[in-house]
């Protein structure tokens, strides 16, 4: 999945050449896919639609990236055309799944990713057409591609809903959550762009991205076991579910040696950070050059980690520390480790893009003031959505568990997210916070959102076992 984001079109190439090349690429892939489809006989099933989504989004991402680098407006026109086409296929995939399952697709990580990718594409088009932030697709479309690829790896079977999930309010809750989180993600991307336009030093971005990847690998390595193994959740292939030892207690299996590899990658992603700190101390620019090379090296190692993780955790029988015998596992059982590794690669690539093409990016982006305003507006959309999301969740909990608020970790963290954004709004409105401080606040808000979405499920115990 990394290869798509790493496409590096030559800025020297004229606009038409690349558009024609991407167009031919998309057409070729569609043609090949069509041949396969004709052979199998099913034209409009979900996996075909999803494949079409992937092809169009990839085309869109390539063109957006090309726009980000060259700044030729022709790219954007074709990029949004490709996004529209991908969105159409994506909508089709959602509709097909809805029809097949008989309920709106919100009940598993897979289905939520399907919705998330869709929301992301819609918001990209809105940001582009309404607010004129044309370069946004450079960030959002690669994320959408990662989402679609993750979906291919996760389970796709239509799974019947357990009784607690059979509620309209759940659908309302999850839809609002996806919309709110997508809006938060957008405000985060805008805040980052603001920092670029606000002349924040490239080195600071180096420190931030390294810190993110180090934190990700530290998080993953909380599963490091004795003798260099890495524990992942066991997977029952017949029931297509995680294996539980008892209520709420998951069974972990240990993949041998993978832990050591991840420790190595941790060292590789920590190296730029260490070099950056040495540079801060000595002010010797040689260390900075080394740090940037270390980022490049760390990306190679991260890709290696991804390949090995996918290879080992995709299938296979492994021993457990808690039970006798060998148990199977599956990538579906470790969505968070997978997204962590993919996220690390993506963030490091974005840093390289900034490092190499900063001037072009600055020319492309709207002015700092404009970005600051749009960030605020996005949060002004996200905050009411967050509020309604929490309210719908509380109402659902009240109908299902008899209590609208039980302080379970997910609820508590949703409330914390809400408070952080409420803090942002108060600081902005009553204290007139603008610019950098506001941007940091928006970034903090999104970090808390990510923790609520991934961290709580992955690290903390609670009732929200479904998501």
């Amino acid at each position, binding site marked *: 999945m990394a290869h798509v984001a790493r496409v590096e079109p030559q800025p020297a190439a004229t606009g038409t050449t690349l558009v024609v090349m991407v167009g031919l690429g998309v057409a070729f892939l569609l043609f090949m896919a069509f041949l396969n489809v004709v052979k199998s006989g099913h034209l409009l099933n979900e996996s075909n639609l999803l494949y079409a989504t992937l092809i169009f989004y990839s085309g869109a991402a390539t063109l957006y990236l090309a726009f980000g680098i060259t700044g030729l407006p022709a790219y954007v026109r074709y990029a949004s055309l490709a996004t529209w086409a991908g969105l159409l296929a994506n909508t089709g995939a959602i509709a097909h799944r809805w029809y097949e399952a008989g309920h709106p697709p919100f009940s598993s990580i897979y289905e939520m990713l399907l919705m998330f990718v869709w929301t992301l594409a819609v918001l990209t088009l809105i940001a582009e057409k309404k607010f004129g932030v044309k370069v946004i697709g450079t960030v959002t479309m690669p994320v959408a591609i990662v989402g679609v690829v993750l979906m291919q790896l996760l389970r796709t079977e239509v799974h*019947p*809903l*357990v*009784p*607690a999930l*059979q*509620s309209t309010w759940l659908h309302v809750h999850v839809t609002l959550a996806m919309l709110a989180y997508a809006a938060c993600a957008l405000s985060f991307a805008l805040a980052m762009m603001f920092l670029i336009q606000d002349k924040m030093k490239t080195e600071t971005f180096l420190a931030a991205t390294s810190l993110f990847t180090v934190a990700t690998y530290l998080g993953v390595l909380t599963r490091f076991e004795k003798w260099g193994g890495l524990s992942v959740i066991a997977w029952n292939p017949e*029931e297509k579910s995680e294996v539980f030892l008892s209520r709420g207690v998951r069974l972990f299996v240990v993949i041998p040696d993978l832990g050591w590899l991840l420790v190595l990658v941790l060292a590789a992603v920590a190296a730029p950070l260490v070099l950056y700190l040495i540079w801060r101390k000595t002010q010797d620019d040689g260390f900075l050059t080394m740090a940037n090379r270390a980022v490049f090296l760390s990306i190679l190692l991260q890709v290696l980690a991804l390949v090995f993780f996918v290879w080992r955790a995709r299938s296979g029988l492994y021993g457990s520390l808690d039970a006798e015998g060998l148990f199977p596992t599956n990538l579906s059982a470790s969505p968070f480790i997978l997204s962590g590794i993919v996220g690390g690669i993506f963030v490091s690539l974005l840093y390289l893009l900034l490092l190499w093409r900063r001037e072009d990016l600055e020319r492309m982006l709207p002015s700092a*003031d404009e970005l600051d*305003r749009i960030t*605020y*507006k996005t949060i*002004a*959309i996200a*905050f*009411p959505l967050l*509020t*309604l999301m929490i*309210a719908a969740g*509380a*109402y*659902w909990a*009240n*109908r*299902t*568990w*008899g*209590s*609208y*608020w039980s*302080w*379970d*970790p997910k609820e*508590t*963290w949703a*409330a*914390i997210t809400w*408070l*952080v954004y*409420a*803090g942002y709004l*108060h600081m902005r*409105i*009553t*204290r007139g916070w*603008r610019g950098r401080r506001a941007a940091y606040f928006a970034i903090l808000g999104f970090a808390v959102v990510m923790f609520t979405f991934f961290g*709580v499920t992955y690290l*903390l*115990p*609670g009732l929200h076992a479904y998501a």
Partner: protein
Amino acid sequence: MGTTVHSLARKIWQTLAAIKTGVILLILVVIISAAGTVILQRPATDADEMQRAYSPQVLRLLDGLGLTDVFHAWWFVLLLTLVSFSIIAASIQRFPNAWRYFSRPYKSPDETFRKALPGHVLIPIQDEEAALSVAERVFKKAGFGPERIVHPSSFSLFGERHRFSEMAVYIVHASLLLIFLGGIVDALYGWRGFLTLSRGQQSSQVESQNGSKRALPFAVRCDGAGQENYADGSPKRWWSDLAVVKNEQVVLRKQIVVNDPLVYRGVRFYQASYGKTGKVDRLLLTATPRDGQGAKDITVGLGETLPLDADTTVRLAEFIPDYVVRDGQVYARSNDLENPAAHLVVESRKSGQAVNFWLPPIEGIEQNASSPYAFEGKDVQMAYFTGLEVSHEPGQWSVWAGVIVMGFGLALVFYFVHARVWAVPVRDARGQRMLWIGGTANKNKDVFEQRFQKLVEQIKSELKISPEAGVEAPIAALAGK
């Protein structure tokens, strides 16, 4: 003395109302609640698991500090109360200003205001009356509802939209207090409990989490319960037919499922669990007399006695769903219907003789050979229990009201802009007649700026003034929010 008390109270009030206090309190709430999600909490985590997770010293320390039940600790409740007071104090302190702004709109701008306002233009005019009429028409068309403000020698225009949005933030704060109020009421007067019923059973005793019993002024009876599965065997639906019984009369009936509770007098019954009791509900048998003539099917419940003929009766004395025999005794291994055994007692009234019939025959204790009837098991229906979560939350209506009000409030805060426009005829330094047009908005200033410019263009075009004419003040200063 009196003054010191007074000044102390004032100081406390001002500290509470300060935004800094509010921020510090909120940061504390965030840190403590985050800690509450990381540290295992009672009673959600049971005592054994707590002891496994923490060493005795650490556990004693955590318990002593109340960190194992953060969200119900007195100091957390105190903190939330302080947050509420801070919101109230801050709102009250800022309210008079906002109210003045709201209730007494500034309609005729003086010279200082006219000069200081970032968004204004001056356009040269010939006739005051005509120019103001044009401005009035344009303002009206744009939805500003202009009114004429009459001065001793002339008049000016004032128009505005969505003035109520100035009050929106108080609506949001009030809604938050409503939600808090509901939470406090529930913390004080609400309760939760559990009730387990099997078919036909009736109870008015609810067991709370700490094991104590609570008596309800009515009873609940279970008339049936069941589970439906998907084709793959995973549960699709659990249901219970419940009846509320008061003074021996059924006052309410409802089939509840997960997500759809029964509500009676503010007490709600939720489908929470469903499972096997390990007891038999009905056992279907074929009874054949010794002579082999006139076999018949009978259905018998546990402890029930049935006549087989004029002289003989049969009673189901025991039913073991999953039996093992050890040292000549029968034991139950589990509650699952794996390896069932039934103990029937066949009695003859004439002889007064009772025979133990075991199905299947268990060596050592069965007397099947001397029974006047032979029995054969045909079917068994096990008894199931339904687990009901019971809760009483009188404060929830305040919470839902707060949520709805907050939805409205936030919509007003974010999407309704209080915009004001003025048009005042003035004379410039050379004595030339000019029309001063000014406008301002309390948020989304960039959007308003464009709108304002459009209004000015319209007025100019209707007055047949070329767009270049007029002295425009730098409007860029408007852009901010």
